């Protein structure tokens, strides 16, 4: 048990190190730095610019630069955004909470919707056929861009915006988050319920479940026995969802104007704000890696077979 736990954690740390390397290389490959603009000024000599670069260690070999950069990042220093005119780390931290809130509400909506869609027992045959061959494939093909725009349109038509609401109140936050989460959860629900419906259908056909059913076990008991073996599969799929969810938040934050990391990264890209862009990518990707780690650990808890070391 301890070994497989440690293995998962080591794997996640390795991923984070690879991510930092990738992000560092990306930031080095991006054209220009803060001193590029100084070259335009004829009153600043190239020697001064070189001196400035050297004073920040940019003349050292690349691996050393990487280690220096990593040390700063681990100390929470992500640099200073020239466009936003403030330090990157606090800005990122402040935006992080909104993205996490958005992702959480999306996950909740996705789970509830999937749970409802996952009970073929309670559906007539034609409903099942319609769901499996029409609705779910259709929803799977919805790009997030479109669901966001469409939900935004519906939202505005039904509830015309009221100005002057108190920002920051709990109800307001929930209302702000509900619509983008709904838009984001449509393709996610389609993906998750497609897989989970197959899974539940298999469980329904299993002998132990049929016996329990024929002996007249009441519904709560049936649910408990039926859901348990589906949990590891469910967790595994949730891990897959995180990556597309994070990508979706960029679009949803843009369309619904929620100041989270996605919007921040997008603006940074449009403004060529390298440090902020790099920090945003680092934050977004680390969130997914950490989410996957959490899912992995939960899977070990849910699936006793994984507790034994892998041969």
């Amino acid at each position, binding site marked *: 048990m301890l070994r497989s736990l440690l293995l998962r954690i080591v794997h996640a740390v390795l991923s984070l190190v690879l991510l930092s390397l990738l992000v560092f290389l*990306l930031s080095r490959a991006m054209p220009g730095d803060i001193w590029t603009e100084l070259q335009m000024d004829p009153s600043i000599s190239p020697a001064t610019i070189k001196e400035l670069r050297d004073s920040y260690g940019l003349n050292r070999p690349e691996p050393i630069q990487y280690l220096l950069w990593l040390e700063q990042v681990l100390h929470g220093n992500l640099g200073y955004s020239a466009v936003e005119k403030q330090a990157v780390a606090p800005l990122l931290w402040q935006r992080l909470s909104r993205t996490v809130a958005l992702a959480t509400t999306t996950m909740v909506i996705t789970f509830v919707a999937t749970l409802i869609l996952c009970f073929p027992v309670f559906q007539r045959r034609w409903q099942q056929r319609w769901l499996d061959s029409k609705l779910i494939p259709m929803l799977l093909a919805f790009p997030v861009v479109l669901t966001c725009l469409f939900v935004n349109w519906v939202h505005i038509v039904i509830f015309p915006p009221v100005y002057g609401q108190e920002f920051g109140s709990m109800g307001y936050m929930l209302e702000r988050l509900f619509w983008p989460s709904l838009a984001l959860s449509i393709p996610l629900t389609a993906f998750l319920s497609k897989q989970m419906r197959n899974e539940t259908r298999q469980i329904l056909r299993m002998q132990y479940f049929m016996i329990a059913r024929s002996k007249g076990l009441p519904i709560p008991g049936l649910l408990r026995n039926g859901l348990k073996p589906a949990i590891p599969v469910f967790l595994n799929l949730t891990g897959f969802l995180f990556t597309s969810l994070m990508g979706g938040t960029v679009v949803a934050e843009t369309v619904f104007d929620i100041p989270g990391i996605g919007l921040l990264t997008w603006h940074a890209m449009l403004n060529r704000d390298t440090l902020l862009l790099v920090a945003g990518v680092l934050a977004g990707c680390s969130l997914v890696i950490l989410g996957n780690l959490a899912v992995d650990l939960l899977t070990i808890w849910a699936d006793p077979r994984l507790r034994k070391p892998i041969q």
Partner: protein
Amino acid sequence: MRAALLFLALLCCLAGCAPFVSPYAPHEQDRQNVLRPPLFHSPHNGPLQWFGLGPDGRRHLYRARSGKFFLLGTDIFGRDLFTRICYGARISLAVGLLGTFLTLLAGTFVGLLAAIAGGWMDSVCMEMTNFVLSLPTLFLLLALRALFPWEVTTVAIYLILVSILALTGWADVARMVRAKVLLMKSEEYVQAALAIGVSPARLIWRHLVPGLIPYWLVQGTLLIPAFLMSEVTLSFLGAGIPEPDASWGNILRQGLSLTVLTASPWILLPGIFIIGTAVSFNALADCLRRLTDTETA
């Protein structure tokens, strides 16, 4: 299945014969007719003229006898949406097709390398693959897009888009190709070929590639709509195909403005084409999978 093929064929016709199908040029602006609803016909006099000669001296599928007719309405610059969807289909489909080709190429290369070389090479390749798979693609796409200069021609942007899509998409293909090749390696015909000492090139070309073809077909058909959606997302965010050239993503971009979205929701009509294309390709992939009996994730 039949409907899917029909839709795709129709779409290819629309994209291929765009100058014939629509009576307008894609950049043609009509500031008098901004944000007109679908089927807008003004001044309305009589039915449409089919295969009529337009003022540009070419024959078009349909045109208004006099005045203007907009099949799917116009955008904020008074450009005909249907025309832009037809021309946009060219770029969006081309991104999907070339991106898929490059991704299959790159993924197959890595997968073959991992499966045939084995040992530490295999571990390194698979570690990289799992790492890329665990990253949110859109963030990576944004960062990669920032590597390239901003103001470049549409062709250059197109090539940039395709290559960054391949850079983020190869991992899935690599994983599946490796699994498939490992399976094939344990089979008798490959073992026999190895025993008589064929060269690696011949082994790959003669014995492994034929086994991968059905997988390429299925996975390729699945990747086309995925890349189409990536193109839509990137162009929508303003990092893809630039205006005034049309792509399905940057037509939708006008819907970012709330006033445009509420006053003229038909700006979302390209969405129907996107969904239709994606559903058709997915159905096609399903059918190919059943025909070739291939397992994909």
